[in-house]
């Protein structure tokens, strides 16, 4: 028990920079959304009120809504693609560097079994990713729906789609697992960082391109005009907004499956690599290429 608590403290201390960066990022995103919907929105509405309906000529103040919509879009975009940073950090810093420098191997001689070491290394960041999402997603859902008339996006936009539910968290968890597996496989920080980011970018692009195929579409044969909030798929096929949750949950499920497989593979790999080694002795780091 004390060993576990010590390990948790060690991991938190070793990665305190990442902990601080993540906390500040999530809080800043939430604070930004609150600010936009309490302060910015008032000044934008005041400017828009200068544009009366049916007034002659063009009203320049119409541009004011951009002051609201652009930062809102940036916040959800940064939050969604934060999984790039998670993948890079997990592959490079969390695992790769520890194996490369031998500190992991050293830890395994200090009454911490390799599997427990990995469990703590994964559980703490996973908890923080889930907590971050639990704070961000409800605030974002409130902010996104608060001033629809000022925004130019809809529910099918990549960032809006993911940030409206657990998918944004699933991307972070998947990046953590993929980065960990890459770090364990390659045992070097920089290659693991590159591979983890590349895998996550490819996976994300694949899901974004095929997102609409994960649930059967509805058809409206012969219909020319479709409502704006229908996601048109061509030939009269479309997704109504009510398909958001099925589509979103299937994508989340795919991501969590990849997460589970990568995590299981990471534990299996570590177990296979470290069993049979004499426990109390320092294990030699893999010999490095010499000059």
């Amino acid at each position, binding site marked *: 028990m004390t060993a576990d608590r010590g390990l948790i403290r060690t991991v938190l201390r070793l990665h305190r920079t990442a902990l601080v960066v993540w906390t500040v990022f999530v809080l800043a995103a939430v604070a930004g959304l609150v600010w936009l919907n309490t302060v910015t929105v008032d000044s934008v509405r005041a*400017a828009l009120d*200068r544009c009366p309906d049916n*007034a*002659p*000529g*063009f*009203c*320049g*103040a*119409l*541009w*004011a809504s951009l002051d609201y919509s652009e930062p809102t879009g940036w916040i959800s975009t940064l939050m969604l693609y934060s999984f790039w940073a998670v993948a890079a950090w997990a592959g*490079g*810093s969390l695992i790769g*560097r520890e194996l490369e*420098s031998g500190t992991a191997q050293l830890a395994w001689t200090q009454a911490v079994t390799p599997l427990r070491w990995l469990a703590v290394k994964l559980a703490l960041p996973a908890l923080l990713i889930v907590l971050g999402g639990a704070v961000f997603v409800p605030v974002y859902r409130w902010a996104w729906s608060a001033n629809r008339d000022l925004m130019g996006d809809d529910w099918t936009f990549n960032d809006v789609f993911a940030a409206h539910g657990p998918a944004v968290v699933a991307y972070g968890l998947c990046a953590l697992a993929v980065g960990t597996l890459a770090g364990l496989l390659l045992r070097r*920080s*920089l*290659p693991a*960082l590159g591979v983890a980011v590349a895998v996550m970018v490819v996976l994300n692009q694949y899901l974004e391109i095929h997102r609409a195929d994960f649930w059967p579409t509805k058809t409206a044969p012969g219909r020319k005009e479709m409502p704006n909030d229908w996601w048109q798929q061509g030939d009269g096929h479309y997704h109504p907004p009510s398909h958001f949750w099925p589509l979103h949950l299937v994508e989340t499920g795919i991501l969590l499956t990849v997460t589970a497989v990568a995590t299981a593979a990471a534990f299996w790999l570590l177990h296979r690599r470290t069993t049979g080694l004499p426990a109390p002795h320092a294990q030699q780091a893999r010999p*490095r*290429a*010499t*000059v």
Partner: protein
Amino acid sequence: MSTVTTPPRATAPAPGAPGTQAAPARRLRWLLRLHRPALCVWTVLVVVLAALLLWLGGPLTDASAAAWNQYDACPTTGACGYDQEAILLYKDVSLYTSLTVLTLPFLVAMWAGASLIGRELESGTARLAWTQGVSPTRWLTAKLALPAALVTVGTALAALLNRLAWTAGLGRVDTAKPWYSIETFYASGPVVVAVALAGLAAGTLLGLLLRRSLAALVGSVCATAALWAGIFMALPHLWPTVTRVSSLREGPSGSGIGVAEGLLTADGDRLGIPRYCGSSIDPSCGALFDRLDAVSFYRDYHPASHYWPLQFVASGILLAVAVLLTVLTFRVLRHRTADHRGGLA
């Protein structure tokens, strides 16, 4: 890592010692061997990017231009068929290749900071090399010369092909970006080559200062972002501008890289543009202009003829930054190894 001690004088081999002649060739082989993955990745990246840019400038531009011809021949009402796929494909490939060219300096700086220098100092292989008859200065020279050459060639090729692809679509593809857009101006001229070289120098210095690969990696990304942001903000001021005066109704006009714009009063004073009032088409803005005694708009900007002067001045400044950072790197290295000479490495 402190177990490696520096034998006295081992860092400066005597002239004419056996193996001195073969040393440069051997160093080159060693460098190529150590960074073979990076060399492969860079080569593949440049070749794929070049192939995509040739495809963009040739078949894709032709297909898109043909589609635009079809579209422009469409009657104003009723259905009309045109090759929308070709237009969209051109637009996507053009955007993504340009963005890739703009990220090349980031990759170079990251690699230089983390892999070329940071990792070597972190793991102690650099200090080991310094005990094997390679002086720190020579070590750094060898480390920088070949990457600098490869970065120059690769980035210049990408920039040149991007410019050729852009020129091919000029006046034929309606969605082609103007010369002053970020994708065109910064990704198809000597500026991107100069940023890449400055990034290489910045990454090297950070690797040496931080001595840790991941810290140097993050630092190099920030440094390259700072280089891009700095040149983006400074560039409009690197050459004298042209001023164009336009009517209150027309709004500020003159397309190019803008520097300043505003209202001109009857007395010739320059005023800022009131928020959201870019033209007197908006009656409330017209009334406001009257109250301010404004008679016209002005805009200070760079027309297309300033393209090359701006490119060359900006590249010159960036290359000076690169040289400065390199000199600083050598000084830091000499200072640091002088302290250690004869003692613990």
